[in-house]
């Protein structure tokens, strides 16, 4: 095994990891803040790429195309939210329904299963081809990093506002929130829209990076997003005091995921097995805290203290 080949892969892994980190921040908003597992994102990831690529091909500027992609994602989140709040469908099922319908919609947007967008013809914001030999500000690592930083700053501000606080309260304790006059259904809609908008934005960046939009792109995205959330939380558990740092940890979780992923490929791991491994890793990390609680005796400090006092006396 050639170690330099792994090192050569690393910049690409970091750029990809940052883009997926953006996606994971979207997942964090539903999964952790709203306490709701939203599977729409598998569809929205591809929708974001599809809308972005088709708008660029249709002559729109890249920023406009990316805004379009974000809005499309928000619309998908709105649909899931309405299925959940207006029709009373459990959130997980509502997400699956939207995700499935998005597959058809994405095919219609793309007009095929796949659309290429050439980095030579269009001045794409992030591109695999720019990973080397370009000024630093064009490097996809730098560009994605700026996106992550701006996104965290905006979300940090938003969740500090009265509206953002109401959204956090909704995830924390819905009945208390209603008692305090918060329209929890509207907050769920808002959270799902923000989350899916962010995921679609990540999808738009990913499609540019790959030079193509593919209807299959989002398959299993939720698992990668959850993996990034959990890796970020576990690795940086000591630092997670502040909301902005939590989000940064999630983005870093995405980067770690892709570094491990790239290393696994470098070690000649069968690529067919990668999704299985991702799912196994997420299941493991989700399950371990539960098993710990079940099988270890709690180390309660106050009990230990009274015992000490007794032995002292």
């Amino acid at each position, binding site marked *: 095994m050639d170690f330099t080949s792994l090192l050569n892969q690393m910049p690409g892994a970091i750029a990809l990891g940052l883009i997926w980190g953006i996606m994971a921040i979207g997942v964090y908003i539903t999964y952790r803040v709203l306490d709701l597992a939203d599977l729409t994102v598998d569809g929205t990831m591809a929708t974001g790429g599809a809308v972005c690529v088709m708008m660029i091909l249709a002559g729109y500027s890249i920023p406009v195309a990316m805004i379009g992609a974000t809005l499309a994602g928000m619309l998908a989140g709105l649909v899931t939210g309405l299925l959940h709040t207006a029709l009373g469908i459990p959130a997980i099922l509502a997400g699956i329904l939207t995700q499935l319908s998005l597959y058809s919609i994405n095919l219609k947007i793309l007009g095929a299963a796949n659309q290429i967008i050439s980095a030579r013809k269009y001045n794409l914001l992030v591109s695999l081809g720019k990973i080397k030999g370009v000024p630093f500000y064009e490097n996809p690592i730098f560009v994605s990093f700026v996106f992550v930083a701006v996104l965290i700053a905006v979300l940090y501000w938003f969740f500090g*506002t009265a509206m953002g606080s109401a959204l956090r309260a909704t995830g924390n304790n819905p009945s208390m929130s209603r008692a305090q006059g918060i329209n929890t259904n509207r907050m769920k809609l808002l959270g799902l829209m923000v989350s899916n908008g962010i995921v679609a934005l990540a999808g738009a960046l990913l499609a540019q990076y790959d030079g193509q939009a593919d209807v299959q792109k989002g398959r299993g995205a939720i698992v990668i997003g959850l993996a990034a959330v959990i890796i970020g939380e576990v690795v940086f558990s000591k630092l997670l005091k502040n909301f902005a740092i939590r989000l940064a940890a999630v983005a870093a979780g995405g980067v770690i995921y892709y570094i491990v992923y790239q290393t696994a490929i470098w070690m000649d791991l069968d690529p067919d097995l990668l999704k299985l491994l991702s799912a196994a890793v997420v299941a493991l990390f989700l399950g371990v805290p539960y098993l710990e609680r079940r099988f270890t005796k709690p180390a309660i400090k106050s009990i230990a203290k009274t015992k000490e006092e007794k032995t002292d006396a």
Partner: protein
Amino acid sequence: MLELSHVYKVFNPNTVNEKIALNDLSLTLNDGDFVTVIGGNGAGKSTMLNAIAGVWRPDAGKILIDGVDVTAMPEHKRAKFLGRVFQDPMLGTAAGMGIDENLALAARRGKFRGLGWGISKAEKVEYKEKLKTLELGLEDRMTAKVGLLSGGQRQALTLLMASLQQPKLLLLDEHTAALDPKTAAKVLALTDRIVKENKLTTLMITHNMKDAIAHGNRLIMMHEGRVILDIAGEDKKKLTVDDLLAKFSVASGSEFANDRAMLS
């Protein structure tokens, strides 16, 4: 202030588990009334409070708060009229948010929540002062997550939250039942103080007959979804637990066979 007229609520209708929880319930509260509510399990006490709070719509009847018909108003909208403290200390606060943030959420009850800051500097100063009055040391832990507080501390905080935005009506659903006796007494004293200071119209459910007699200016007893006893003023002051037990057997035509109520 509050008017319930001919309110009905049936749970699990047309099944073997059908339960008429509120049966033609009518009750009028005057401005400034502090009403204690007693009654056995399943008498409809909590159901009445949930009907007022709008957790669901009653099957029939009308509910007016301060002259406004709220019967069809969703829970989050009528929240502006109401302060609520629940039996379960976990229910009244957002555990994952700070003490200050919880107060700020309550301070915006009934107001539009826009993109202004969720909590201002002036508010933090104000909340610190208000927390001091609880004498629980919470003013030094303003940013601590509420999940770290004890049940009594959480109930005291919830009471403070309920009174931040002067409510038309304060609803207390056995809010001391989950606390140890000493803490319960403290929270009750605090309740009295907050009700008095803010001149709040209050409905307080309790399973403790002594408390029901000692607090408030009016006492109602519920049985099978309606009010069977309504005593106010001087008559209430003279009440004893034995009186209440006797009145219950007469009014309901049955022995008061509820040990929770008997214990007190």
